[in-house]
Each structure stands twice: as structure tokens, then as C-alpha cells.
């Protein structure tokens, strides 16, 4: 429980520390003023607007570290509803890593003094810069980091939940915080709108999910995952309560992973929110959704050796999702929306992989390979998807980043940042030897290896084989074709960065910590694709999946 404790301590610290001041409490009836430290005019150090950020960075670093150190901890149950094991530690490591990156990346920009105004396009350059700097230098930064740590707390807790209700509560904790984070983006008039839409659709989805969960409860009388599983396996036929319950929970998690058609608010939210927050939504939040899907779909509803009821449904939704995402991204002109749609597409790929797990291979090596692949993909997605959003965040420091024109000539203005961005989009596209390729390869490998053997072995020509093969095989084909389609818009980003004229030759803001985060992402994107780091990571993931599979 170390990381969670650290997070709670951090939360307390971040609430208290910025409020420390020279306030003194006059002991009643005396003139002795006892310094109570809370309130009054604050000390220079606590007054520093960068303080909350430092606390947050520190908290996340420590939490990440402890999570990493405890990753091979032996499974341990806490209070009957939480279970600490390698799998949960793995995901909490991922969440904390993402949050740490977001936290570092937001050092140089954050919202909101009450008198701060949103700069307009029509402002002169000086006015524009001043407004930006006012927005930056703001003591109310602390709110942002409180919420960030709350997200972290929700996420790390949900990794351990063995009770469906606990799972939902933790997800809600994280989600509600992210709704606010989305709306936090106040330099832009769209922040509120983005938050509102994301909130309202998210709430509807979670309401549906909770209702579905209540149906499950009606059906089984308990929300403990193990009991649910036993009931499911001993179920005669398909109980409508159970089926509807699972279906409705899919809606809630579908929204989290932004699967079509529940993803519609996501692009709006991503483009309205601050880029690091968008990145958080696209990675950690999505991973949270997938983790929940693992729990519900893989743990509860997969019968040994036969097809799960949701397999075909999920396959259809996977294909719709990836195609929708890629098609929509194709002509989008807002880089944040492009990344958002790409995130939708990636959700589709992963859903496809999960769908295969339901094809009756439960408990076999193949299913653990697939889950390893999906987890690994979620892991490396943090690196390059978040990295890409961080590059946009760097552009946002000058009030840009929501139009593809703002990327024009980035290669000339800042070759390293542009190079990193190019690396990120290539990895998103799945170009070897980057990590995006490796993870996608593993997923496709899982699908192919499961389905390719199903074709009739006596078929002597292609058509008869194609008729006899498991339709899941075409999921792999769909992924590959979609990857090809996606190249268009990924490469377009690279293209405009290197081959278009920039509107200004001004170099980008220095923002050292943001840059550091970007470069770290870029480096890891490469390292996780090939070489010992990728080995180590993959090894770790597959061990963790092992502990998940044999719980």
C-alpha cells in the first residue's frame, strides 16, 4: 500500500503547504500569538507558485519509485476488497508514470488567477504574452495538483480492487477529478465546454454502468469478482440480468477507453483541455478503462474453452472503433483532435485483441500473450501518445497547438522537438523498430496465432480457406489495414513539421522540464521498441499478466 499512502500524504501536504504562512493565533485572553502557520501572509517559499508543482512532482516520483520497488511483491489481500499483486503494481506504475510526466510537464504553464484573461487572437504580441504570463504565475495552481493527485489515488486504488463496486468507486474518483481537470483549461474559452461535455457524457455512461452493475448484483447477490466468476461459470444458459449487466458495464468502460460510439465527447474534451490533461485522458484514463475491461470481461465472463458471449459484439465494436477513429483523423486539421481520434483508433486495436481472448482460449498461453500485448501497448502508449501531447503542450505555452498550421516548420524552429514529435507519430503508426511497432506486432501476433489455425486444413485454395477460417482472423487484417490508413495523417504531421514554412522563426519557449519530459518519452519510445529495456519491460508485463491470469 506504499504508493497509495505516499499519495495520501502528498495530498495532505499539497493542501497544507501552500497555505503555510505567518498567521498567528492569539491565545485567548493573552497577547501571546502562537504561530499556527496556516493562513496569514505566506512565506516566500510557500508563496512560490511553483511550490505545488514541486510537491506534486515529489509525490508522484516517490510513489512511482515505491510502486516500482514493490512490483514483485507477493500477492496480498487487503480488507477483502483490495488485492495487491504484480498486476496491480504494474498498472499503478504505469498510472503514476503518466501522472508524473503530466505533473512535470505542467510546471511551466498553468491556469488561473481570477483576474487573468484569456488572450485573444486580436491582441498585440505584448498584451498576448503578458496575459499568458499572468495565467502562468498563479497561486491557484495548487487546485490542479490536488486534482492530479486525486486522479492518481483513484487510479492506483482501482488497480487493486477485487470488488466490482470498489472498482467503480475508484474509477469515479479518478473520473470526476479528470472532468474538472478538463474544464481547468481556462486560457481557452473552450475549456468549460469541453469539461461540460465530457462530464455529462461520462456521467451518463457511468450511470448506465452502475445500473448494469446493480443488475449484476441482482443476479448474483455479490459483487466480489471471484464470486461473480463462479456464478458465471455455473450459470445455466445466459441469464438476462447478467448479460444486460455486463453489456451496460461495457458502456461505462467503453466511454473510458473511448470506444465508438461512446467516444464522441473525447475529441472535444481533448481539444478543449490543456494538452497534458488530454494526454492523461488518452493514456492513463484509457488504461484504466482497459483494466476495468480486463476485470469484467476476462476475469468474470470468460468460460474455459468456449466462446464468451461478448466476443462477436466486441469484435464488431473494435472494428467500428478503429475505422471510425482513423477515418475521422484523416482530414482533421486540429492536431489535438488528430491525436484524439488516433487514440480512438488505438482503443479499437486493443479491443480487437481483447475480443480474441473471448474466443475460447482462456487460460492458455495465447490469451496471456494477448493480454501481455495489450498491457504492453498501454504501457508504451504512455510514452508516445503522452509525448505527442506534451509537444503540443510546449506549443501551448505560446498559445498555439490547436491548429495544424501551428506545427508548420517546427523542424526548422526546433529540430529536436520536431524530431521527437516525428518519432512519436511514427511510433503511433507502428513503424519498426519503435515501441509502437513492437506492441502492435504482439497484438496482431496474438490474434493471428489464435485464429489462423482455425481455418480448415483441407482447404486447397484461398477462398475456401477464407470461408473456413475463424472470422477473428480478419480482425488482424482490419488492424493492419487501419494502420496503413492511419499513416496518412501521422505522416501529414511529420510533413508539415519539416516541409512547411513556419509562420514565425521565433524559437520555442525554453521550458526545460517540459522538454525533459518530452525527451524522456522519445528516448523510451525507442528503447522500449528494441533492446534490453524493451526486454525488461516486456518481461515485467508478462510476469504481471501471469499473476493476473492465475489469480
Amino acid at each position: 500500500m506504499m504508493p497509495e499512502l505516499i499519495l495520501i500524504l502528498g495530498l495532505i501536504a499539497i493542501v497544507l503547504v501552500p497555505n503555510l504562512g505567518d498567521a498567528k493565533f492569539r491565545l485567548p485572553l493573552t497577547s501571546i500569538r502562537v504561530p499556527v502557520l496556516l493562513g496569514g501572509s505566506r512565506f516566500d517559499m510557500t508563496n512560490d507558485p511553483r511550490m505545488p508543482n514541486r510537491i506534486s512532482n515529489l509525490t508522484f516520483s516517490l510513489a512511482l519509485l515505491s510502486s516500482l520497488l514493490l512490483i514483485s511483491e507477493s500477492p496480498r489481500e487487503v480488507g477483502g476488497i483490495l488485492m495487491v499483486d504484480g498486476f496491480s503494481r504494474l498498472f499503478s506504475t504505469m498510472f503514476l508514470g503518466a501522472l508524473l510526466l503530466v505533473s512535470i510537464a505542467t510546471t511551466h504553464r498553468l491556469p488561473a488567477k481570477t483576474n487573468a484573461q484569456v488572450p485573444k487572437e486580436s491582441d498585440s504580441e505584448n498584451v498576448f504574452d503578458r496575459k499568458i504570463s499572468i495565467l502562468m504565475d498563479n497561486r491557484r495552481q495548487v487546485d490542479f495538483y490536488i486534482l492530479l493527485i486525486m486522479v492518481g489515488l483513484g487510479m492506483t486504488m482501482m488497480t487493486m480492487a477485487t470488488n466490482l463496486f470498489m472498482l467503480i468507486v475508484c474509477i469515479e474518483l479518478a473520473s470526476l477529478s479528470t472532468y474538472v481537470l478538463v474544464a481547468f483549461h481556462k486560457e481557452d474559452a473552450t475549456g468549460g465546454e469541453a469539461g461540460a461535455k465530457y462530464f455529462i457524457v461520462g456521467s451518463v455512461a457511468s450511470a448506465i454502468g452502475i445500473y448494469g452493475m446493480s443488475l449484476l448484483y441482482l443476479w448474483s447477490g455479490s459483487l466480489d469478482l471471484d464470486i461473480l466468476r463462479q456464478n458465471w461459470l455455473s450459470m445455466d444458459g445466459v441469464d438476462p440480468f447478467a448479460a444486460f449487466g455486463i453489456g451496460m458495464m461495457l458502456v461505462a468502460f467503453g466511454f473510458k477507453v473511448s470506444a465508438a460510439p461512446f467516444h464522441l465527447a473525447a475529441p472535444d474534451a481533448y481539444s478543449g483541455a490543456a494538452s497534458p490533461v488530454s494526454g492523461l485522458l488518452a493514456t492513463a484514463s484509457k488504461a484504466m478503462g482497459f483494466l476495468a475491461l480486463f476485470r469484467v470481461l476476462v476475469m468474470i465472463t470468460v468460460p474455459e474453452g468456449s466462446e464468451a458471449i461478448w466476443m462477436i459484439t466486441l469484435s464488431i465494436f473494435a472494428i467500428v472503433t478503429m475505422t471510425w477513429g482513423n477515418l475521422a483523423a484523416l482530414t482533421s486539421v486540429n492536431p489535438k483532435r488528430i491525436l484524439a481520434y488516433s487514440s480512438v483508433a488505438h482503443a479499437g486495436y486493443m479491443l480487437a485483441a481483447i475480443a480474441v481472448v473471448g474466443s475460447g482460449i482462456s487460460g492458455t498461453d495465447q490469451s496471456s500473450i494477448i493480454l501481455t500485448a495489450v498491457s504492453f501497448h498501454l504501457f508504451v502508449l504512455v510514452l508516445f501518445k503522452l509525448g505527442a501531447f506534451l509537444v503540443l503542450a510546449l506549443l501551448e505555452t505560446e498559445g498555439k497547438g490547436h491548429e495544424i498550421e501551428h506545427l508548420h516548420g517546427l523542424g526548422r524552429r526546433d529540430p529536436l522537438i520536431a524530431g521527437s514529435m516525428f518519432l512519436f507519430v511514427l511510433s503511433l503508426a507502428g513503424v519498426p523498430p519503435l515501441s509502437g511497432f513492437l506492441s502492435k506486432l504482439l497484438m496482431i501476433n496474438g490474434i493471428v496465432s489464435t485464429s489462423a489455425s482455425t481455418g480448415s486444413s483441407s482447404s486447397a485454395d484461398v477462398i475456401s480457406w477464407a470461408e473456413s477460417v475463424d472470422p477473428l482472423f480478419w480482425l488482424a487484417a482490419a488492424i493492419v489495414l487501419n494502420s496503413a490508413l492511419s499513416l496518412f495523417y501521422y505522416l501529414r504531421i511529420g510533413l508539415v513539421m519539416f516541409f512547411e514554412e513556419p509562420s514565425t522563426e521565433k524559437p520555442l519557449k525554453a521550458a526545460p522540464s517540459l522538454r525533459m519530459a518530452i525527451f524522456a518519452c522519445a528516448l523510451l519510445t525507442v528503447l522500449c521498441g528494441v533492446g534490453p529495456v524493451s526486454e525488461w519491460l516486456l518481461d515485467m508485463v508478462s510476469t504481471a499478466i501471469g499473476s493476473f491470469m492465475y489469480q
Partner: protein
Amino acid sequence: MGESKSETGLLAYIIPFLAVVPVLYLLDWESHEASILIVAVPFMTFPVILIAGQIYNGTEYWKIKLKEGGILALGALGVSLSASLWLVYDYVDSLPNFYDQQSIIQWLEWVSFDLLQSDYTLTSGTKILGMGVWIDSITLMILLVATFLCFLICWFSLGYMNTDPINEDRNHRFYGEFVLFALGMFGMVLADNFLWLFIFWEVMGLCSYLLIGFYYWKDSAAYASKKAFLTTRVGDVFLMIGLFILYDIYGSLEFSVIFHDPSLDGMVDSNKLFWALLMMFIGAVGKSAQFPLHVWLPDAMEGPTPVSALIHAATMVNAGLYLVARMVPFVDVGHHGVAGLEELGLIIAYVGGITAFMAAAIAFVQNDIKKVLAYSTMSQLAYIFTGLGSALWFYNNDEHHAAVVVFGASMFHLFNHAMAKGMLFMASGSVIHEVHHAHDHLHHGDHDHHFDPQDMRNMGGLASKMPVTATAMMFGSMSIIGIPLIGGFWSKEGIIAETWLAALEHEPLMFGPAILVLLTAGMTGFYMSRMWFMTFAGEPKSEVVNHVHEETPWIKMPLVTLTIVTAFGGFAFALLGATDYLSSAYDYSGHLKLHESTLISSIIGELEHAFLPEKMNLRIIGWITIFLSFIVGPVFAARIHGGNLAKGESATPLVSWLVSLSSKFGSQDVTSLAESELSVALQNRLYFDDLYEGILAKTVIPFSEFAAWFDRKVIDGMIKQVESKSVIGSLQVRNLTTGSARDYILMATIGMLSIIALLWGLN
């Protein structure tokens, strides 16, 4: 002339070249080992000339001393000539028989490979497409002709090309390509297999392209060169197919395997072989400009005159004949040949007959001196084809004696024609050169003045101005016409007679070619005489003629040499039994009659053979031929174009008799005839060129444009459709994201309902 003296000194440069072969002899080389030099020396020389010429262009030494590479070319060809003379000396009387012969020497294993047999194993032992040397009487004869003529034509070019200011600083190109051309012919003749025959054959095709297009800036030359290459290419492609089939049948392309691997006896499918040979014959048709692939030859006159001489006499057109001559062993049923291929002989004979007649007819109306010669070439080659066709027919019907005679005659005609035609072209070159020179002299630098130095209507009465040329041309024409005792007579007679023999005694279908070649004999008499009379007899038709005089010594020497060869060579070789000897390539018996009989008796025997053959019908045919070609044709020509020279001019005695004779037959106005439709059609080459071009313009060009359109619009269009369709799809998908949260919720609800429906419906 002072200049000419110093130029003769340049020949010193070629002495080292000429010394190569004697030195090798002293070093104990065998002549067949030296045969590699025939090809190798020119091969090494041509890039030197081209590259050095391009680099040292315009420098004094290169231009004056080396004649822009001409001297080098002459030297290289001198090596070839001397090496081939050595070969002739060694082998002329000691040839092994064709059917026992192996390649004399294997130079290189060019391409080696295995084949998969029908029992799924590889052939034992690697197959090789190599190159080696093959020598028999045909090789020797054509090699000698080629090296000798190439040498002389190169010599001639030194005078002809280097004095024309338009060629200045370009001649290295001419000489380089010339040498390459020559080596192509040498190599083709020496090759011991069909593949390398084809390879060198194509080298010649390339060079004809380069040389015909030597005046590349002229539209007509560029067009003509392309036409020549493409037309011959059509033939070449079929030749290639023929070779593929041949390879399939015999498993090799080497003469030695194909012609005397006894294991192949009776194994060969005659139908397949027929197609192979027919395909190869199409190749020969293209190369030798026979109907229907004849259209390139007249246009090829766009090249410089030495090139015309080279193509028409020494090299290229003979290649087709050589190839057909090499077909004999396939059909020779007396040996390993395959029966049932009579149609091939018929087809060849018909093609020959038709071409002979058609070309002669067109030659009637040509006014360009070189064009007349070009059609004459076509016509004479057609004779040889007819002869070879009959020979193949005879061979295939096991009429061995007749076959040998007509085959030998055809080969002999090749020799005679080559010598005469080479000389005629050089002579015409001499005329053109001097007329052009005189014209330049007369109209200094006046380029606008339109004047065609090749047009015979601008000439006339040149006999006195150019005595050497006139004499040479007279003998050349006589040889071509077949005036008794001179050159071509000896061979032409044999072809016509034997073709008739085939028709009369064996195969009625042979009447077609037989009649055609007989008629052509008379027509030849007419158009060759016409050319000579128009050029040399009568009064000058333009003032330019008065300023013409022979100057350049480089030009005279080859003319004189060839005049002698033409005038006496035919008879001499006939006496030596050339006919028998040449057919001995495929025969056990033939030898040169060097030691057999006294001169007088062989002369008498030969004359008797020519004029009073034993068979009566042959005798009649022979005399009809003589009558047509010797009397009818020339007399008509003399009536129309003949006439005395202008007053005060006198020609050498060698030709003056002819000039004065030409005026004896009165004159006839043929204007109405010249304006007749037939004449117009002939002037338009019977519209063959128009026909071909029309077909090309109506089919190939539109189709290629259609293909380009199809590729751009349909195939690439489909790809672009994918792109544009996905852009449209993308916009539509994006429009689903309306921005209203209400719609999002609605979609989510629909999603939920469909999940439930799917879960429910599928279980």
C-alpha cells in the same frame, strides 16, 4: 597535287597494324587463333576512336595526321583483312567437311546453365552458350568479301568524309561506328552458333542505326535511321523466336551440335522446325530488306555514301543471306535434315521473286542515283533469296545436284553483287562528292540555293569529267545486269535457270518466282543502264557538271581495285569452280579447281556450261535471260536516256564506245508514261511506306495514348479514388461529431442498446 602526296604518307601509320599478322605468324600462331583478331582489334579500336575523338576533337594532330580517326580505323580493318586473308590461305583448300566439323576454337563460355528435364532432374553436364569460330567455305567467302570491302570503303571514306566540311569534327563518330559495324559483320560470319550470330547481327543493326543517322540533325536522316532499326528489329524479334524454338528442339544453338548430333536423327518434329526456320527467315527478310520488310532500305540512303556502300555491299544486307544459307543443313534430307519442309523453300523463293520484281519496278522511276542503287540492291538480294529458296527446296526433295548448283550460284551471286555494289556505291559517292564540290565551288557559301547533288537530272555527260568513275560504274552496272562474261552473269544465270528447272520439272508453284526473276533480269538491264546513261552519257543537264573533276586520290584507289575485281573476278572464280566450292560447305565433293585442269579447257568448259547447258530447257531459259537483260533493257534505256556527250568532250576509250552506242538507238519521249498512275505509284514506292505509317498512326499511336490514359485515369485513378473516397468518408464521419452533448448521449444510448441487442440476439 601536293596535298595528296603528303596524305599518302599517312598510310605509314597503318603499317604497324598490317605488321601484326605477319608478326603473329612468325610467333607460330595458327591462323584460327589469329581469327580472334578479326573481331577483337576493331572492337578495341572503336572506343578508342570515339573517346579520343571526343576529347581531342579539333586538334591538329588528330585532324590532319589521324584523319579524325580514319587512319586508326583503316589500320584496324587492315588487321582484320590480313588475318582473314591468312585464314583463307590456310583453309581455302583444306576445309573439313561441314558435317564432321567441330568449332575451330572456343573463345569463351559465355553463359552456362542447367536445364530441368521432364523427369525432374537436371541435365547432366552444364549447358553452355559460348562463342567460338566456325569456318567453312561460306564463312571464308563472306569474310573475305566483308573484310576486303570494309577496308576499301574505309579507305574511300578518308577521301570522301574528311573533305566534306559538314562532317568536320564529327568524323571520329563515323569511323568509330564504322569499325563497330564492320566487326559486327566479321563476328557474325565467324560465329559458331546461332546465338552469337544473332548477337553480332544486332550489333550491325545498332550501327546501321547510328550511321544512317549520322547526319542526326536532318529530320529525314533521324527518321530513316529509326525506320531502319525498327524494321529490322521486327525481323530480329522473329529471329529470336526462331532461335528459342531451335534451342528447344536441339538443346543447343551450336552448329556442331545442331547439324551433326546423330542422336537427334529422326527426333526432330518437322512442324516445329518449320516454324523455327520460318521465324528465322523473317529475321533475314528484315535484315536483307525483302518484301514486306523492305521499306527501310531506300530511306537508309540518308546516311553518308560510304555507309550505303557498307550496308549494301559489305555487311548488313548480306547477313540475311548468310542466315538463310545456314538453314541448308536443316532441310538437307541427304544428311541430317528433316523432310517435309518444302514450303519453306517455296516461301523464300516467292519472297525473293516478289521483291526482285517490285524493287526493279520502283527503280525504273528513281532519279536519285543512290536510290536506284538501293532498289537494285534489294532486287539483287531477292535474286539470291530466290536462289536459296530453290536450293532449300531441292535439298529438301533430295535433288542434290540441282541444289548444289543453285546454292553455289546464289552464294557466288552474293560475292559478285557485293563487289559490284560496293564499287557502284563508291562510284556514286564519287559522283555526288564531286558534283557537290563543284556546286559549292560555283555558288560560294550560297546555302539557300536548292541543289540536290544526288539527283541524276542534274548530271549527264560526266563520262568525260570523271573517267575513272565512269569506267568503274560501267563495269559495276554490267555486273549487276549480268552482261555475259562479266561478274554477276556467272551467278545470276545459275539462279534463274535452276529456279526454272524446279518449276518445270518438279513443282508448278515455283513458276511464280521463276517468271518474276526472269522478268526482273530484263528490268535490271533497263534501270541500271538508265542510271548510267543519265549520269554519264548525253549532254550536261546543269551547269554544275562543267566544273566537275576528279580530285581526291583516296577515292580513286578503291574504285580501280574493285573495277578490276568486278570485271574479271566473276569469270576467274567461275573458272575456279566457285559455284561448287561455295556449296561445298554442305557437300563432300566441292573443291576449288586449282590443280585440276588446264586454263583453256576450263574456260571452254565453263563457257559451254554457261551458254550451252545440256538440258534444252535450261538452254532456252539462259538465252531468254541474256536476251532480256543484255538487249531489251539496255536498248530501251538508251532510247530514253542515251546520247552523245557535249561537243568537245571525250571520254576514255573504255567507256566512249558505250556512250556513242547509247546514241544509236534514237530517242523516245516517255513523259506520258512518266505521268501515268503506275509511275506515280512506283515513285511512291507502291504506297507501302504510306500503308505502314497509316497503320501505325491509326493503331499503335492511339493505342499507346489510350494505354497512357488508362494508366493515369483508371489504374492510378482507382488508387486516387480510394484516397478521395476516404477523404469524403472521413468528412462524413467527422460530421457525426456534431458538438452537441445531446447527440453524444444519444449515440451512447444507441450503442448501449445495440450492445444489449447483440448480446441478447447472439445468445
